[in-house]
């Protein structure tokens, strides 16, 4: 204990020495990833100021693309959206590993993210928060729903909701016994998978109450009982579980879809030092636990789960046994151009009657 305290003092002094001048950090991130208490602590310790913009994967890329990688100093897209976006639009700059305290990261996640976010031999991403999407189910009303394709079951007709986005395509594909990630490199094979999924989703359409768009919308639908089974993020299920024990996150039999949100440096960011300071700050175990408690997802920080509240841990363990964890399908980097195929499929599903 004493040792940790001393080491953090040393680290803190090192920071102060490093950031001789204070900067403004413009952070483009997800809701919950930069809690006010963390920002306050960071500003106090480093003298930097933080401006937070919350967004999602697509908007982050669109925003950075519109400014050619300017306007923000640190962004947090998912790891599968880094390499292709860099290839297409050149909106990021490589990570300088010498400025990162690598020992704060769980080594396996650090190396996996590095591998997935490498473009032209340079690493562009560091792992931060990870989580899954799967099923959020009202077990009292729809206890039979164990897999993505079960959402098309007649027993839950009209009380189902999922997004019309790429995770739905991939989840359904796995549930149908296909392996979409293996077909990422083969456009024709991937198109074949998409066609099968399209048929399934079109057939399933009468079962769906509505395609949800935002996290609050699906939570409202589940809370009011208008929807009893849905495809959604694990955190949403755990939040609802706190209010209604019947509703919880279920890891699908075909495997939950695992994502890792990262740190990337926008190509024209102006406060790199502040950005590295932020990365090294939030990866500290006690800060990582604070973020987990607000965002609901675990981080890639070593010992980051130590300070997480017991309820959340219990819910996590309730949803994932060891086999379910092993079965998580982690998103590999999306090859450029794949999203065009997926978009056409989604459009056709949307238009189908």
């Amino acid at each position: 204990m004493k040792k940790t305290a001393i080491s953090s003092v040393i680290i803190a002094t090192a920071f102060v020495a490093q950031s001789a001048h204070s900067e403004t950090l413009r952070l483009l991130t997800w809701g919950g990833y930069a809690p006010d208490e963390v920002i306050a602590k960071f500003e106090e310790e480093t003298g930097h100021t933080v401006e937070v913009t919350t967004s999602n994967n697509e908007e982050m890329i669109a925003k950075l693309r519109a400014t050619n990688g300017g306007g923000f100093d640190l962004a947090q897209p998912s790891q599968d959206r880094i390499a292709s976006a860099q290839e297409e639009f050149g909106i990021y700059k490589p990570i300088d590993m010498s400025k990162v305290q690598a020992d704060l990261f769980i080594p396996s996640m650090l190396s996996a993210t590095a591998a997935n976010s490498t473009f032209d031999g340079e690493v562009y991403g560091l792992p931060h928060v990870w989580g899954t999407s799967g099923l959020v189910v009202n077990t009292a009303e729809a206890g039979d729903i164990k897999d993505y394709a079960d959402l098309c079951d007649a027993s839950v007709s009209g009380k189902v909701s999922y997004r019309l986005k790429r995770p739905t395509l991939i989840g359904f594909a796995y549930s149908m016994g296909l392996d979409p990630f293996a077909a990422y490199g083969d456009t024709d094979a991937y198109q074949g998978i998409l066609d099968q999924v399209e048929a399934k989703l079109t057939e399933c359409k009468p079962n769906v109450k509505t395609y949800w768009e935002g996290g609050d919308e699906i939570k409202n639908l589940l809370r009011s009982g208008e929807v009893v089974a849905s495809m959604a993020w694990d955190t949403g299920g755990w939040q609802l579980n706190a209010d209604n024990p019947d509703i919880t996150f279920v890891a699908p039999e075909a495997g939950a879809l695992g994502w890792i949100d990262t740190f990337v440096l926008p190509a024209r960011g102006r406060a790199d030092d502040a950005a590295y300071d932020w990365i090294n700050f939030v990866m500290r175990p006690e800060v990582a636990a604070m973020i987990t408690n607000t965002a609901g997802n675990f981080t890639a920080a070593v010992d980051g789960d130590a300070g997480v509240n017991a309820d959340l841990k219990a819910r996590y363990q309730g949803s994932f046994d060891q086999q379910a964890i092993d079965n998580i399908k982690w998103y590999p980097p999306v090859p450029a151009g794949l999203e065009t195929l997926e978009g056409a499929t989604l459009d056709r599903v949307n238009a189908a009657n």
Partner: protein
Amino acid sequence: MSRDASKLGFYLLLAPLLLWLVLLIILPHIGLFVVSVSEKVGVREYEIGLGNYAAFFTEPLYWRTFARTAIMSILATGLTLILGFPIAYYIAKLTKGRTKTTLFLMCMIPFWVSELVRTYGWMILLRESGVFSSFLQYVGLASGPVEMLYNDAAIMVGLVYTSILFMVVPLVTTLDSLDDSLIEAGYDLGGSSFSILREIVIPHAMPGIVSGCIVVFMLSLGNYLTPILLGGKDSLWFTGMIYTQFITRFNWELGSAFGFLLLALSSVLVFVGLKLSRQSLSGTMGR
């Protein structure tokens, strides 16, 4: 000297208009147009061509969505007119002084909150566990929960609600300018209420009707939130499609082409509408 001064004054007055035109209208559109004629041939490789425009016409989903959006917008415009005309007539012709101001304000009050809040208001009313559904069950008109959200009718309700003010205001203005003695003369010459409405009131209010319809049509066509939030799983809207192309598909080229097509096709529709109603744009907007 004074001539120069007045010239300077003229340019100073002109400057904001020119800045607005050039910076906010012309330049973005030029940029959008340049993007819309770039075809992607590979990673970071683009060619000039009209492929994006061709995609709109060759892919049925795109032009059907546009047609759907246009037809729904026209329907919403018609409904808004049918609902707005009696309201405007009542305000303009049957009330005076304070009552008139109060009614006018009541029409405007919903517009003091954001469109998002207004739309959420409708969601609370229409959803399965919402106010209307509970009320119908309470009075015994429905045996179970009734879902009124997530369909085209809900979009229509939202669109009409969002745009009714923009119909009522020009109508009140034109109806206000209708001399009461013209209506009396109509009655005096043996006209019925219906024939007076058809032959005297509507022809007089035509510029207001047309300008109201143009504004409501454009607002409906360009609406994004209402169709997304109130619409169902089949409720595609063209602006939603543009958003999708720009944001989730990273396909700015097609999105820009769609933006231009929306501009061009809606202009054509407005032009046709003006021709059919035998009104001129300057006659309706220049009032």
